[in-house]
Protein backbone atom coordinates (compact mmCIF):
# COMPACT_ATOMS: atom_id res chain seq x y z
CA UNK A 1 0.00 0.00 0.00
CA UNK A 2 2.83 2.42 0.78
CA UNK A 3 3.78 2.30 -2.90
CA UNK A 4 1.61 5.40 -3.24
CA UNK A 5 3.90 7.34 -0.92
CA UNK A 6 7.50 8.25 -1.76
CA UNK A 7 8.82 6.45 1.33
CA UNK A 8 8.39 3.12 3.07
CA UNK A 9 7.02 2.33 6.51
CA UNK A 10 10.55 1.49 7.65
CA UNK A 11 11.79 4.92 6.60
CA UNK A 12 8.78 6.56 8.28
CA UNK A 13 9.43 4.84 11.60
CA UNK A 14 13.15 5.52 11.32
CA UNK A 15 12.32 9.18 10.88
CA UNK A 16 10.36 9.15 14.15
CA UNK A 17 13.26 7.46 15.88
CA UNK A 18 15.63 10.19 14.77
CA UNK A 19 13.15 12.97 15.47
CA UNK A 20 12.27 11.77 18.96
CA UNK A 21 15.91 11.35 19.89
CA UNK A 22 16.82 14.74 18.44
CA UNK A 23 14.17 16.61 20.40
CA UNK A 24 14.37 14.69 23.68
CA UNK A 25 13.15 15.62 26.34
CA UNK A 26 10.45 17.46 24.37
CA UNK A 27 8.02 14.53 24.72
CA UNK A 28 8.17 14.84 28.51
CA UNK A 29 7.62 18.58 28.33
CA UNK A 30 4.73 17.97 25.92
CA UNK A 31 3.01 15.66 28.39
CA UNK A 32 3.45 18.20 31.18
CA UNK A 33 1.99 20.97 29.02
CA UNK A 34 -0.81 18.68 27.89
CA UNK A 35 -1.77 18.02 31.50
CA UNK A 36 -1.68 21.75 32.25
CA UNK A 37 -4.00 22.38 29.30
CA UNK A 38 -6.41 19.64 30.31
CA UNK A 39 -6.51 20.65 33.99
CA UNK A 40 -6.94 24.30 32.99
CA UNK A 41 -10.02 23.32 31.00
CA UNK A 42 -11.37 21.12 33.79
CA UNK A 43 -10.94 23.89 36.37
CA UNK A 44 -10.76 27.19 34.49
CA UNK A 45 -9.19 30.24 36.14
CA UNK A 46 -8.49 33.79 35.13
CA UNK A 47 -6.28 33.75 32.05
CA UNK A 48 -6.56 30.00 31.53
CA UNK A 49 -7.99 30.50 28.03
CA UNK A 50 -4.99 32.56 27.01
CA UNK A 51 -2.60 30.01 28.51
CA UNK A 52 -4.29 27.10 26.72
CA UNK A 53 -4.29 29.00 23.43
CA UNK A 54 -0.60 29.85 23.85
CA UNK A 55 0.34 26.24 24.56
CA UNK A 56 -1.69 24.92 21.64
CA UNK A 57 -0.17 27.60 19.42
CA UNK A 58 3.31 26.55 20.53
CA UNK A 59 2.54 22.90 19.86
CA UNK A 60 1.24 23.55 16.34
CA UNK A 61 4.17 25.81 15.46
CA UNK A 62 6.61 23.27 16.91
CA UNK A 63 5.09 20.48 14.85
CA UNK A 64 5.10 22.66 11.76
CA UNK A 65 8.75 23.63 12.04
CA UNK A 66 10.49 20.87 14.00
CA UNK A 67 8.59 17.88 12.67
CA UNK A 68 7.33 18.80 9.22
CA UNK A 69 9.93 21.22 7.91
CA UNK A 70 13.07 19.97 9.61
CA UNK A 71 12.41 16.23 9.58
CA UNK A 72 9.45 15.00 7.54
CA UNK A 73 10.42 17.21 4.59
CA UNK A 74 13.49 15.01 4.07
CA UNK A 75 11.13 12.21 3.00
CA UNK A 76 8.41 14.12 1.20
CA UNK A 77 8.49 17.60 -0.29
CA UNK A 78 4.83 18.20 0.59
CA UNK A 79 5.85 18.39 4.25
CA UNK A 80 6.86 21.99 3.58
CA UNK A 81 3.23 22.72 2.80
CA UNK A 82 2.05 20.78 5.84
CA UNK A 83 4.52 22.73 7.96
CA UNK A 84 3.22 26.02 6.63
CA UNK A 85 -0.35 25.04 7.50
CA UNK A 86 0.65 23.94 10.99
CA UNK A 87 2.42 27.24 11.62
CA UNK A 88 -0.66 29.04 10.33
CA UNK A 89 -2.81 27.08 12.77
CA UNK A 90 -0.45 28.08 15.57
CA UNK A 91 -0.66 31.72 14.56
CA UNK A 92 -4.46 31.52 14.50
CA UNK A 93 -4.44 30.17 18.05
CA UNK A 94 -2.14 33.03 19.03
CA UNK A 95 -4.28 35.71 17.43
CA UNK A 96 -7.67 34.33 18.44
CA UNK A 97 -6.80 33.09 21.88
CA UNK A 98 -3.79 34.98 23.19
CA UNK A 99 -3.95 38.39 21.51
CA UNK A 100 -7.73 38.82 21.22
CA UNK A 101 -8.60 36.71 24.24
CA UNK A 102 -11.55 35.16 22.45
CA UNK A 103 -10.97 31.58 23.50
CA UNK A 104 -12.39 30.20 26.70
CA UNK A 105 -12.12 26.54 27.56
CA UNK A 106 -14.31 24.90 30.17
CA UNK A 107 -15.33 21.29 30.56
CA UNK A 108 -19.11 20.88 30.69
CA UNK A 109 -20.89 17.66 31.43
CA UNK A 110 -22.64 17.54 28.10
CA UNK A 111 -22.07 15.50 24.95
CA UNK A 112 -19.54 17.91 23.50
CA UNK A 113 -17.68 18.21 26.79
CA UNK A 114 -17.43 14.48 27.36
CA UNK A 115 -16.43 13.87 23.73
CA UNK A 116 -13.76 16.55 23.99
CA UNK A 117 -12.47 15.15 27.26
CA UNK A 118 -12.41 11.63 25.81
CA UNK A 119 -10.45 12.79 22.76
CA UNK A 120 -7.82 14.53 24.87
CA UNK A 121 -7.40 11.47 27.07
CA UNK A 122 -7.28 9.30 23.98
CA UNK A 123 -4.51 11.43 22.47
CA UNK A 124 -2.44 11.34 25.65
CA UNK A 125 -2.98 7.78 26.87
CA UNK A 126 -4.75 5.47 24.44
CA UNK A 127 -3.01 6.61 21.26
CA UNK A 128 0.49 5.56 22.42
CA UNK A 129 -0.96 2.37 23.86
CA UNK A 130 -2.33 1.33 20.46
CA UNK A 131 1.13 1.83 18.98
CA UNK A 132 2.64 -0.37 21.68
CA UNK A 133 0.03 -3.09 21.13
CA UNK A 134 0.76 -2.89 17.40
CA UNK A 135 4.40 -3.71 18.13
CA UNK A 136 5.89 -0.27 17.81
CA UNK A 137 8.48 0.68 20.38
CA UNK A 138 10.00 3.91 21.58
CA UNK A 139 11.61 5.86 19.99
CA UNK A 140 10.14 4.75 16.64
CA UNK A 141 6.67 6.01 17.44
CA UNK A 142 4.71 9.22 17.02
CA UNK A 143 4.59 10.78 20.48
CA UNK A 144 1.97 12.98 22.09
CA UNK A 145 2.42 16.71 21.58
CA UNK A 146 5.37 16.52 19.22
CA UNK A 147 3.79 14.40 16.47
CA UNK A 148 1.02 15.83 14.29
CA UNK A 149 -1.63 13.11 14.58
CA UNK A 150 -1.99 12.97 18.37
CA UNK A 151 -1.77 16.76 18.44
CA UNK A 152 -4.66 17.02 16.00
CA UNK A 153 -6.77 14.59 18.06
CA UNK A 154 -5.95 16.51 21.25
CA UNK A 155 -6.86 19.78 19.53
CA UNK A 156 -10.20 18.38 18.39
CA UNK A 157 -10.89 17.52 22.00
CA UNK A 158 -9.93 20.95 23.29
CA UNK A 159 -11.98 22.78 20.69
CA UNK A 160 -15.03 20.83 21.80
CA UNK A 161 -14.42 22.27 25.27
CA UNK A 162 -14.26 25.83 23.94
CA UNK A 163 -17.03 28.05 25.27
CA UNK A 164 -19.59 29.07 24.42
CA UNK A 165 -19.06 27.73 20.91
CA UNK A 166 -16.47 25.63 19.15
CA UNK A 167 -14.39 28.00 16.97
CA UNK A 168 -14.91 26.47 13.53
CA UNK A 169 -12.05 28.37 11.89
CA UNK A 170 -9.66 26.56 14.22
CA UNK A 171 -11.06 23.21 13.12
CA UNK A 172 -10.22 23.64 9.43
CA UNK A 173 -6.51 22.80 9.42
CA UNK A 174 -6.83 19.90 11.90
CA UNK A 175 -9.57 18.52 9.65
CA UNK A 176 -7.33 18.83 6.60
CA UNK A 177 -4.57 17.05 8.48
CA UNK A 178 -6.98 14.33 9.52
CA UNK A 179 -7.59 13.60 5.86
CA UNK A 180 -3.86 13.53 5.06
CA UNK A 181 -2.74 11.74 8.21
CA UNK A 182 -5.61 9.29 8.09
CA UNK A 183 -4.84 8.18 4.55
CA UNK A 184 -1.14 7.87 5.36
CA UNK A 185 -2.04 5.81 8.42
CA UNK A 186 -3.88 3.40 6.17
CA UNK A 187 -1.05 3.25 3.67
CA UNK A 188 1.67 2.91 6.31
CA UNK A 189 -0.14 0.50 8.62
CA UNK A 190 -0.20 2.85 11.62
CA UNK A 191 -3.34 1.69 13.48
CA UNK A 192 -3.25 4.46 16.09
CA UNK A 193 -3.53 7.10 13.37
CA UNK A 194 -6.69 5.53 11.99
CA UNK A 195 -8.37 7.18 14.97
CA UNK A 196 -7.58 10.56 13.43
CA UNK A 197 -10.28 10.65 10.74
CA UNK A 198 -12.76 9.13 13.18
CA UNK A 199 -11.93 11.85 15.70
CA UNK A 200 -12.30 14.46 12.97
CA UNK A 201 -15.78 13.30 11.98
CA UNK A 202 -16.84 13.06 15.62
CA UNK A 203 -15.44 16.49 16.46
CA UNK A 204 -17.06 18.13 13.46
CA UNK A 205 -20.46 16.65 14.23
CA UNK A 206 -20.24 17.57 17.91
CA UNK A 207 -18.98 21.06 17.14
CA UNK A 208 -21.88 21.81 14.80
CA UNK A 209 -24.37 20.49 17.32
CA UNK A 210 -22.75 22.40 20.17
CA UNK A 211 -22.83 25.64 18.19
CA UNK A 212 -26.43 25.08 17.15
CA UNK A 213 -27.45 24.54 20.77
CA UNK A 214 -25.48 27.64 21.80
CA UNK A 215 -27.61 29.76 19.45
CA UNK A 216 -30.83 28.71 21.16
Amino acid at each position, binding site marked *: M*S*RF*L*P*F*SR*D*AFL*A*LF*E*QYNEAVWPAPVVAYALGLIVLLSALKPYRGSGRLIAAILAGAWIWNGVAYHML*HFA*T*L*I*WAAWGFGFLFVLQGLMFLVTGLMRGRLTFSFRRDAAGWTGFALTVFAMAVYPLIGTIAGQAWPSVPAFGIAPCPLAIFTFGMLLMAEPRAPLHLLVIPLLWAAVGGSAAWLLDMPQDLALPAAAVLALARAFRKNRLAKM
Partner: protein
Amino acid sequence: MSRRPIDPRRRTLLLSMGALGLAAGLGPAWAAAPSGLLRRAVPRTGEMLPLIGMGSWITFNVGKDPALRAERVKVLQAFFERGGGMVDSSPMYGSSEEVIGHCLGQIADTGGLFAATKVWTPFQWLGVKQMEESERLWGKRRFDLMQVHNLLDWDAHLETLKAWKAEGRVRYIGMTTSHGSRHAEMAEIMATQPIDFVQFTYNVLDREAEARLLPLAAERGLGVIVNRPFQRGDLFDRFGKHPLPGWAAEIDCANWAQFFLKFAVSHPAVTCAIPATSRVDHMLENMGACYGRLPDAATRARMVRYVESL
Protein backbone atom coordinates in the same frame (compact mmCIF):
# COMPACT_ATOMS: atom_id res chain seq x y z
CA MET B 1 23.00 -16.26 -7.83
CA SER B 2 26.35 -16.43 -9.57
CA ARG B 3 27.37 -14.59 -12.64
CA ARG B 4 27.06 -17.03 -15.51
CA PRO B 5 29.68 -17.15 -18.25
CA ILE B 6 27.97 -16.70 -21.56
CA ASP B 7 27.24 -19.77 -23.58
CA PRO B 8 28.86 -19.44 -27.03
CA ARG B 9 25.55 -20.43 -28.60
CA ARG B 10 23.85 -17.68 -26.64
CA ARG B 11 26.40 -15.15 -27.80
CA THR B 12 25.82 -16.13 -31.38
CA LEU B 13 22.12 -15.71 -30.84
CA LEU B 14 22.55 -12.31 -29.25
CA LEU B 15 24.85 -11.05 -31.94
CA SER B 16 22.46 -12.34 -34.55
CA MET B 17 19.60 -10.57 -32.88
CA GLY B 18 21.73 -7.41 -32.77
CA ALA B 19 22.37 -7.68 -36.46
CA LEU B 20 18.68 -8.13 -37.06
CA GLY B 21 17.90 -5.09 -34.94
CA LEU B 22 20.35 -2.92 -36.84
CA ALA B 23 19.20 -4.27 -40.19
CA ALA B 24 15.64 -3.44 -39.27
CA GLY B 25 16.68 0.11 -38.53
CA LEU B 26 15.46 -0.17 -34.99
CA GLY B 27 18.34 1.82 -33.56
CA PRO B 28 20.01 0.32 -30.52
CA ALA B 29 22.04 -2.79 -31.06
CA TRP B 30 22.06 -5.90 -28.92
CA ALA B 31 25.43 -6.69 -27.53
CA ALA B 32 26.96 -8.97 -24.97
CA ALA B 33 29.97 -7.81 -23.02
CA PRO B 34 32.68 -10.44 -22.50
CA SER B 35 31.36 -11.11 -19.03
CA GLY B 36 27.96 -11.96 -20.46
CA LEU B 37 26.44 -8.68 -19.35
CA LEU B 38 23.75 -7.63 -21.79
CA ARG B 39 24.15 -4.06 -22.94
CA ARG B 40 22.63 -1.89 -25.58
CA ALA B 41 23.88 1.16 -27.41
CA VAL B 42 22.71 4.67 -26.69
CA PRO B 43 21.43 5.58 -30.16
CA ARG B 44 22.97 9.05 -30.32
CA THR B 45 26.51 7.97 -29.47
CA GLY B 46 26.81 4.20 -29.53
CA GLU B 47 27.86 4.20 -25.88
CA MET B 48 26.97 0.82 -24.39
CA LEU B 49 24.70 0.68 -21.36
CA PRO B 50 23.74 -2.39 -19.31
CA LEU B 51 20.12 -3.33 -20.00
CA ILE B 52 19.21 -3.21 -16.32
CA GLY B 53 19.62 -0.03 -14.34
CA MET B 54 18.27 1.03 -10.97
CA GLY B 55 15.47 3.37 -10.01
CA SER B 56 15.21 4.96 -6.58
CA TRP B 57 11.53 5.87 -6.03
CA ILE B 58 10.70 5.02 -2.40
CA THR B 59 13.57 2.58 -2.02
CA PHE B 60 16.38 5.07 -1.43
CA ASN B 61 14.26 7.66 0.39
CA VAL B 62 15.40 6.62 3.86
CA GLY B 63 16.45 9.96 5.29
CA LYS B 64 19.42 9.98 7.62
CA ASP B 65 18.83 6.64 9.31
CA PRO B 66 22.25 4.94 9.50
CA ALA B 67 20.93 1.36 9.45
CA LEU B 68 18.70 1.89 6.43
CA ARG B 69 21.49 3.75 4.66
CA ALA B 70 23.89 0.87 5.32
CA GLU B 71 21.38 -1.54 3.75
CA ARG B 72 21.13 0.67 0.68
CA VAL B 73 24.91 0.71 0.37
CA LYS B 74 24.75 -3.09 0.10
CA VAL B 75 22.00 -2.89 -2.51
CA LEU B 76 23.98 -0.46 -4.65
CA GLN B 77 27.15 -2.48 -4.12
CA ALA B 78 25.37 -5.59 -5.41
CA PHE B 79 24.12 -3.58 -8.38
CA PHE B 80 27.62 -2.54 -9.40
CA GLU B 81 29.10 -5.96 -8.69
CA ARG B 82 26.61 -7.49 -11.12
CA GLY B 83 27.53 -4.96 -13.77
CA GLY B 84 24.83 -2.34 -13.22
CA GLY B 85 25.19 1.05 -14.84
CA MET B 86 22.32 3.52 -14.84
CA VAL B 87 21.14 4.87 -11.49
CA ASP B 88 18.13 7.13 -11.83
CA SER B 89 16.66 9.50 -9.28
CA SER B 90 14.84 12.81 -8.91
CA PRO B 91 14.57 15.73 -6.50
CA MET B 92 10.97 14.62 -6.13
CA TYR B 93 12.06 11.44 -4.35
CA GLY B 94 12.68 13.01 -0.94
CA SER B 95 16.11 12.11 0.40
CA SER B 96 16.91 9.62 -2.39
CA GLU B 97 19.53 11.77 -4.08
CA GLU B 98 21.29 12.46 -0.80
CA VAL B 99 21.22 8.77 0.10
CA ILE B 100 22.54 7.76 -3.31
CA GLY B 101 25.38 10.25 -2.87
CA HIS B 102 26.11 8.75 0.54
CA CYS B 103 26.10 5.22 -0.88
CA LEU B 104 28.36 6.14 -3.80
CA GLY B 105 30.82 7.55 -1.30
CA GLN B 106 30.88 4.20 0.52
CA ILE B 107 31.48 2.01 -2.52
CA ALA B 108 35.00 1.60 -3.77
CA ASP B 109 34.25 0.80 -7.39
CA THR B 110 31.42 2.69 -9.03
CA GLY B 111 33.15 2.68 -12.36
CA GLY B 112 30.10 1.60 -14.33
CA LEU B 113 27.90 4.35 -12.94
CA PHE B 114 25.74 6.19 -15.44
CA ALA B 115 24.26 8.95 -13.27
CA ALA B 116 20.78 10.09 -14.24
CA THR B 117 18.52 12.46 -12.42
CA LYS B 118 15.81 14.97 -13.18
CA VAL B 119 14.80 18.56 -12.84
CA TRP B 120 11.38 18.97 -11.26
CA THR B 121 10.11 22.46 -10.63
CA PRO B 122 7.73 24.86 -12.38
CA PHE B 123 10.38 27.60 -12.37
CA GLN B 124 13.27 27.68 -14.82
CA TRP B 125 15.56 29.66 -12.49
CA LEU B 126 14.88 27.21 -9.68
CA GLY B 127 15.66 24.35 -12.04
CA VAL B 128 19.25 25.54 -12.32
CA LYS B 129 19.59 25.67 -8.54
CA GLN B 130 17.97 22.26 -8.29
CA MET B 131 20.35 20.64 -10.77
CA GLU B 132 23.33 22.18 -8.98
CA GLU B 133 21.97 20.84 -5.70
CA SER B 134 21.62 17.39 -7.29
CA GLU B 135 25.30 17.54 -8.32
CA ARG B 136 26.20 18.35 -4.72
CA LEU B 137 24.02 15.60 -3.27
CA TRP B 138 25.37 12.94 -5.61
CA GLY B 139 28.92 14.22 -5.32
CA LYS B 140 29.06 14.46 -9.11
CA ARG B 141 30.57 17.29 -11.08
CA ARG B 142 28.59 16.26 -14.15
CA PHE B 143 25.56 14.08 -14.68
CA ASP B 144 25.47 11.64 -17.55
CA LEU B 145 21.79 12.30 -18.08
CA MET B 146 19.53 15.12 -16.93
CA GLN B 147 15.82 14.74 -17.62
CA VAL B 148 12.77 16.93 -17.21
CA HIS B 149 10.57 15.12 -14.71
CA ASN B 150 7.03 14.43 -15.86
CA LEU B 151 7.32 17.11 -18.55
CA LEU B 152 6.97 19.80 -15.86
CA ASP B 153 7.66 23.17 -17.52
CA TRP B 154 9.61 21.16 -20.07
CA ASP B 155 10.08 23.87 -22.69
CA ALA B 156 11.74 26.26 -20.22
CA HIS B 157 13.96 23.57 -18.70
CA LEU B 158 14.90 22.26 -22.12
CA GLU B 159 16.50 25.62 -22.91
CA THR B 160 18.65 25.25 -19.80
CA LEU B 161 19.47 21.64 -20.58
CA LYS B 162 20.51 22.43 -24.15
CA ALA B 163 22.81 25.14 -22.83
CA TRP B 164 24.24 22.82 -20.19
CA LYS B 165 24.85 20.13 -22.78
CA ALA B 166 26.58 22.60 -25.09
CA GLU B 167 28.80 23.67 -22.19
CA GLY B 168 29.58 20.05 -21.34
CA ARG B 169 27.85 20.28 -17.96
CA VAL B 170 25.71 17.24 -18.83
CA ARG B 171 26.26 14.52 -21.42
CA TYR B 172 22.69 13.63 -22.40
CA ILE B 173 19.34 15.29 -21.92
CA GLY B 174 15.87 13.79 -21.83
CA MET B 175 12.20 13.86 -20.84
CA THR B 176 10.22 11.60 -18.57
CA THR B 177 6.66 10.63 -17.96
CA SER B 178 5.06 7.71 -16.15
CA HIS B 179 1.78 5.90 -15.49
CA GLY B 180 1.16 6.00 -19.24
CA SER B 181 0.17 9.64 -19.00
CA ARG B 182 0.69 12.46 -21.53
CA HIS B 183 1.91 10.19 -24.30
CA ALA B 184 0.64 12.55 -26.99
CA GLU B 185 2.64 15.46 -25.61
CA MET B 186 5.66 13.22 -25.15
CA ALA B 187 5.39 12.07 -28.77
CA GLU B 188 5.27 15.67 -29.95
CA ILE B 189 8.43 16.46 -27.98
CA MET B 190 10.16 13.35 -29.26
CA ALA B 191 9.33 14.29 -32.82
CA THR B 192 10.47 17.90 -32.60
CA GLN B 193 13.00 18.49 -29.83
CA PRO B 194 16.75 17.75 -29.73
CA ILE B 195 16.76 15.31 -26.84
CA ASP B 196 18.75 12.11 -26.32
CA PHE B 197 16.61 10.01 -23.97
CA VAL B 198 12.99 9.49 -23.08
CA GLN B 199 11.63 7.67 -20.06
CA PHE B 200 8.17 6.21 -19.73
CA THR B 201 6.27 3.26 -18.34
CA TYR B 202 6.37 -0.05 -20.16
CA ASN B 203 5.75 -3.53 -18.86
CA VAL B 204 4.05 -6.75 -19.79
CA LEU B 205 0.63 -5.30 -18.96
CA ASP B 206 1.13 -1.58 -19.70
CA ARG B 207 2.03 -1.74 -23.37
CA GLU B 208 0.55 1.51 -24.68
CA ALA B 209 4.05 2.69 -25.55
CA GLU B 210 4.29 0.02 -28.24
CA ALA B 211 1.80 1.88 -30.39
CA ARG B 212 3.56 5.22 -30.73
CA LEU B 213 6.39 6.05 -28.34
CA LEU B 214 8.66 3.04 -28.87
CA PRO B 215 8.54 3.11 -32.69
CA LEU B 216 9.01 6.88 -32.62
CA ALA B 217 12.03 6.55 -30.34
CA ALA B 218 13.56 4.06 -32.75
CA GLU B 219 12.80 6.30 -35.70
CA ARG B 220 14.24 9.39 -34.01
CA GLY B 221 17.26 7.60 -32.54
CA LEU B 222 16.34 8.24 -28.91
CA GLY B 223 17.40 6.16 -25.96
CA VAL B 224 14.47 4.68 -24.04
CA ILE B 225 14.46 4.18 -20.29
CA VAL B 226 11.62 2.02 -19.01
CA ASN B 227 10.19 2.91 -15.62
CA ARG B 228 7.75 0.81 -13.57
CA PRO B 229 8.73 -2.45 -15.27
CA PHE B 230 7.02 -4.22 -12.35
CA GLN B 231 4.03 -1.84 -12.40
CA ARG B 232 5.17 -0.58 -8.98
CA GLY B 233 5.22 -4.14 -7.69
CA ASP B 234 1.64 -4.86 -8.68
CA LEU B 235 2.81 -7.47 -11.20
CA PHE B 236 4.23 -9.55 -8.34
CA ASP B 237 1.00 -9.19 -6.37
CA ARG B 238 -1.00 -10.30 -9.35
CA PHE B 239 1.15 -13.04 -10.86
CA GLY B 240 3.71 -13.95 -8.19
CA LYS B 241 1.50 -16.70 -6.78
CA HIS B 242 1.47 -18.47 -10.13
CA PRO B 243 4.31 -20.65 -11.36
CA LEU B 244 6.62 -19.44 -14.06
CA PRO B 245 5.91 -21.21 -17.33
CA GLY B 246 8.32 -24.02 -18.08
CA TRP B 247 9.51 -22.29 -21.23
CA ALA B 248 10.76 -19.32 -19.15
CA ALA B 249 13.96 -21.32 -18.76
CA GLU B 250 14.47 -21.02 -22.51
CA ILE B 251 15.03 -17.29 -22.00
CA ASP B 252 17.00 -17.81 -18.79
CA CYS B 253 14.32 -16.53 -16.44
CA ALA B 254 14.60 -18.07 -12.99
CA ASN B 255 11.95 -15.89 -11.35
CA TRP B 256 9.15 -13.47 -12.12
CA ALA B 257 11.40 -10.42 -11.78
CA GLN B 258 13.54 -11.66 -14.65
CA PHE B 259 10.46 -12.59 -16.65
CA PHE B 260 9.03 -9.06 -16.34
CA LEU B 261 12.35 -7.33 -16.91
CA LYS B 262 13.32 -9.41 -19.91
CA PHE B 263 9.97 -8.63 -21.46
CA ALA B 264 10.59 -4.89 -21.05
CA VAL B 265 14.19 -4.75 -22.21
CA SER B 266 13.74 -7.15 -25.11
CA HIS B 267 11.79 -4.58 -27.07
CA PRO B 268 14.32 -3.46 -29.67
CA ALA B 269 13.79 0.23 -28.98
CA VAL B 270 14.42 -0.02 -25.23
CA THR B 271 17.85 1.00 -23.95
CA CYS B 272 17.40 -0.04 -20.33
CA ALA B 273 14.87 -0.60 -17.55
CA ILE B 274 15.20 0.86 -14.08
CA PRO B 275 13.55 -1.37 -11.47
CA ALA B 276 13.79 -0.18 -7.88
CA THR B 277 14.44 -2.31 -4.84
CA SER B 278 15.57 -1.96 -1.24
CA ARG B 279 16.76 -5.56 -0.94
CA VAL B 280 20.00 -7.17 -2.01
CA ASP B 281 18.33 -10.48 -2.95
CA HIS B 282 15.88 -8.65 -5.17
CA MET B 283 18.70 -6.65 -6.72
CA LEU B 284 20.45 -9.91 -7.57
CA GLU B 285 17.26 -11.22 -9.14
CA ASN B 286 16.85 -8.01 -11.13
CA MET B 287 20.42 -8.05 -12.34
CA GLY B 288 19.98 -11.64 -13.41
CA ALA B 289 17.85 -10.25 -16.22
CA CYS B 290 20.97 -8.59 -17.55
CA TYR B 291 22.39 -11.99 -18.44
CA GLY B 292 21.42 -14.90 -20.64
CA ARG B 293 19.01 -15.11 -23.51
CA LEU B 294 16.37 -12.54 -24.29
CA PRO B 295 12.97 -13.34 -25.77
CA ASP B 296 12.43 -12.86 -29.48
CA ALA B 297 9.23 -11.36 -30.88
CA ALA B 298 7.37 -14.67 -30.82
CA THR B 299 8.36 -15.37 -27.24
CA ARG B 300 7.42 -11.84 -26.21
CA ALA B 301 3.95 -12.44 -27.60
CA ARG B 302 3.85 -15.73 -25.72
CA MET B 303 4.81 -13.92 -22.50
CA VAL B 304 1.89 -11.54 -22.93
CA ARG B 305 -0.52 -14.36 -23.66
CA TYR B 306 0.68 -16.24 -20.61
CA VAL B 307 0.24 -13.44 -18.07
CA GLU B 308 -3.09 -12.46 -19.59
CA SER B 309 -4.28 -16.03 -19.19
CA LEU B 310 -3.55 -16.08 -15.44
